[in-house]
């Protein structure tokens, strides 16, 4: 049984079909890269998966059960969580408190257990001395890490990461990739939306390419990078 299955999912905004009859499936432990030009429907697809948008047609099946139409907090508690560059942290709370919320709610932990897991996550992220800092006062790179920490705290087994490396410098991207490797080592499954191609190519086992809401290619990174349609639509020149 696949961990996640999208069956003919369509999401429209008025006359615009942001995602059109999109199907794919994902196995446990995989790292899947989702790429495509701006406006191709990647973020919309993520929002459909986590319940921010309800699909107009089709169905999303997670762990063998349909989750279409469930509220985001329910989907989070079932084990699918999204991190995004556009999500603001809880500004008036400290970095540590930011992690307690997903730990207690998404992860169903008690306050004490949530603190313990938060300490472990801060360690993993290299933020162990930033716990008490108000989250409104941390750097961009730290905010991205905190966002990653937020989804880790939910204990979700499937992580949807929406451009969490955007705006990071090459050294920070390297660090983030190292983190993702570690997270995968813990048995998590990851779908990655990213424009930093070097990062996506390096870590993904499989790529899905979206254009105008439809899948135009799928396969191993090196195959996809040579696909003429993908080059035409997104890469601009052969990448690999």
């Amino acid at each position: 049984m696949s961990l996640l299955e999208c069956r003919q999912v369509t999401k429209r905004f008025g006359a615009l079909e942001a995602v059109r009859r999109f199907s794919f499936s994902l196995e446990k432990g995989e790292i899947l890269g989702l790429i495509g030009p701006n406006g191709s429907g990647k973020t919309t697809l993520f929002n459909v998966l986590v319940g921010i948008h309800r699909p107009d047609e089709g169905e999303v099946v997670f762990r063998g059960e349909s989750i279409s139409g469930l509220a985001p907090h329910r989907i989070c508690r079932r084990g699918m969580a999204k991190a995004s560059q556009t999500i603001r942290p809880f500004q008036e709370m400290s970095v540590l408190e930011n992690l307690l919320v997903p730990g207690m709610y998404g992860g169903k932990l008690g306050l004490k257990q949530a603190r313990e897991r938060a300490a472990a996550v801060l360690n993993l992220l290299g933020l162990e001395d930033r716990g008490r800092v108000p989250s409104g006062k941390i750097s961009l790179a730290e905010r991205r890490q905190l966002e990653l920490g937020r989804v880790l705290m939910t204990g979700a087994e499937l992580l949807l990461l929406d451009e969490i490396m955007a705006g990071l410098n090459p050294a920070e991207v390297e660090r983030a990739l190292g983190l993702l490797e570690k997270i995968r080592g813990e048995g998590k499954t990851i779908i990655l939306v990213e424009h930093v191609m070097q990062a996506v190519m390096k870590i993904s086992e499989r790529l899905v390419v979206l254009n105008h809401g439809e899948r135009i290619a799928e396969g191993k990174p090196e195959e996809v990078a040579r696909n003429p349609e993908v080059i035409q639509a997104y890469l601009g020149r052969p990448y690999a």
Partner: protein
Amino acid sequence: MKALSPNKGLPVFLVFFLALAALPLLGVEGYRLRLLTLLFLWVSLAGCWNFMSGYTGYIDFGPVAYFGTGAYATAVLMIRFDLHFASALALSGLICAPLAALVGGATLRIRGAYFAIATFAAAEALKQVTLEGDRVAGFEFFGGSHGLTLPAAPDSEFFYYLLLGFMVLVIGITHFLEKTKFGYGLKAIRESEQAAELSGVPTFKLKMRAYVLSSSLIGCLGGIEAYWLTYIIPDDVFNVMRTIQMVIMTLLGGMGTVWGPVIGAGFLTLVGEFLGAKFVYDYLTILGVVIVVVILILPRGIMSLMKGRRGETV
């Protein structure tokens, strides 16, 4: 606020509470006792408003709906059903709960000005029910604009201790919010509702709980005031000025903090009384200027004077 952080604050709070409880025994009575009782009432009201609106960021502009409902429920239950005050009061709180669930169910999905407008409208609508209900339905129940007279009330000390107890309860609830799952969930809603939802927080359910709890307690406070004053009319117990006062007190003190409503209500009540005695005709003007000045200097409330108030004490 370091001196009053959860652990160190308790002894300070206890001493303060015991001192207040001892005042009537030390001979405080008459006007001063009534002033303190009024102060407890306002601290409680502002506190109830705060743990809904201050913590979730949903600005409730109709809390007076439940104050008036509670006042009328207590009055009607005592007069028309001959209930004892205690049972009438408890029932008044219980009546406000489903009412708040109804209003909240319809309005807590909308944010910002719309939520404020919707709650404001709900309060005005309920006022009309008590004002015109009798005439429309053709019976004698709410007394229309003539209001209702309740049975004679016990002495001032009764209300002093009742409202002191109530104030402690409200402060206790808010204190509980500071470091518990429920409180963190509410604060997360205030900071970013979408991030909260994506972190597994059942946002609607939490808002409903806070709103229903806050509204029921405000309903009880309305019942207490009705019995205290023994005479109520719709224009007073549903007066929008009461809502505004709860909001201003909390803003003055600091929204979303335990002690903000206490300081704000204390400041406004005492300064108001002082100015009222000194400048009988102009005191409201002066009070207005004072409020504007405080908010200009301290936009986040008097509590922001205490350093490191937020996000540091974990």
